[in-house]
């Protein structure tokens, strides 16, 4: 394939990945990797590098709006970044020595886990009384609702959430993804942070987490400009288009459809990984 053809296909594919990622709530990075490896035959290391670049672009872009609205809990984000950055550095180092078949299978499993997680019914439990450690770390916060009210929330189980964030960071460094699904488990299920705050704070943290592994990626040669450029541009515009549609439609049916699609991609990746084709 000539570079021109490759670039054009990539822009289109990355646009679709960003679009699906935004509608399904899975993020563009996690979809671009099977697209590059399974369909276009790109080496998984380059795919991981390009995905990480697109994760930084989309998360910084959308975090900008949330931070301004005052929904993001910056203290919580920065505190948990200790765990995610340590995990990310470890994961990135591991990805350089792990066999590609192992990475492919692990990626497939993560993809399935994330797809199931995106379909799970979520229930919100706001805790008002924080645990002593959460109080010490000033992790409680408030956020504004649409009708101008202010919701107060507390948090608990800081150590459990912190550990889960370490795993989220490791998956991010190992696979070049934002690992939103793991972050949401840490914040929603373990720490009982309200959804609005957990999703925006997770987004806010992604850039720094990805940054911690990106230095290692650059030094190891994962960042290939010819792949990253079309991927970043495509994913970013795809995500923006997806966000526009999300406002107007109920994504429930779409989510089921995309979860099935992602499931097929994941099985494909695991199969190829086991056969040593990736």
């Amino acid at each position, binding site marked *: 394939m*000539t570079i021109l053809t490759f670039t054009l296909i990539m822009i289109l594919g990355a646009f679709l990945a960003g679009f699906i990622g935004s509608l399904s709530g899975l993020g563009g990075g996690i979809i671009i990797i099977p697209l590059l490896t399974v369909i276009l035959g790109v080496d998984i290391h380059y795919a991981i590098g390009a995905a990480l670049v697109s994760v930084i672009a989309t998360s910084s872009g959308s975090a900008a709006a949330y931070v301004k609205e005052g929904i993001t809990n910056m203290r919580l984000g920065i*505190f948990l970044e200790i765990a995610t950055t340590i995990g990310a550095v470890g994961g990135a180092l591991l990805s350089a020595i792990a066999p590609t078949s192992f990475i492919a299978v692990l990626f497939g499993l993560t993809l399935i886990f994330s797809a199931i997680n995106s379909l799970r019914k979520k229930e919100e439990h706001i805790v008002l009384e924080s645990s002593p450690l959460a109080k010490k770390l000033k992790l409680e916060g408030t956020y504004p609702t649409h009708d101008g009210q202010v919701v107060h929330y507390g948090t608990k189980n800081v150590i459990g959430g912190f550990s889960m964030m370490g795993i989220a960071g490791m998956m991010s460094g190992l696979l070049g993804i934002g690992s939103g699904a793991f972050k949401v488990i840490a914040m929603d299920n373990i720490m009982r942070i309200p959804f609005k705050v957990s999703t925006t704070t997770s987004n806010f943290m992604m850039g720094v987490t990805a940054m911690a*592994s990106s230095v290692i990626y650059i*030094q190891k040669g994962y960042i290939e400009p010819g792949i990253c450029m079309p991927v970043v541009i495509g994913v970013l515009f795809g995500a923006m288009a997806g966000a526009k549609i999300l406002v107007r439609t109920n994504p429930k049916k779409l989510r089921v459809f995309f979860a099935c699609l992602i499931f097929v991609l994941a099985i494909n990746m695991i199969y190829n990984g086991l056969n040593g084709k990736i």
Partner: protein
Amino acid sequence: MEKSNDMTQEKFGEKDFQAIIGNLLRYGVWTSLSVAFIGGIVYLLNHSQEVENYSVFKENDRNIFEVISAVYNGAIQGRGESIIFSGIILLFLTPVFRVLLSLFSFILEKDYLYVVITTIVIGIIIMSISFGFSH
């Protein structure tokens, strides 16, 4: 910024920082993407008919500073790949600036616990530079 310890003034300071951080993230992304886009056009003008070989991974073991200086030299010579790479480096720097801004904001708020926490995060990022390559 303001030295007053008045509560409302301090709140105002934090809101200001939220706005600054929000803007930094937004302009950081758009600037770096514009650079990468220009680089992409230059790259395609020179290499569009070559055949890609992305199915084989060439592992590197280069110090980040070597990479940056190579990218800088290439960008000056107008090489498309290097211009794209500088856009990507700018993109990576956006969250770094964000952390530094948060550090600055916590220092102004005299929240020393979070000054320490933010410093730890910066320390981990700096350490990742030395972990990344075998010496």
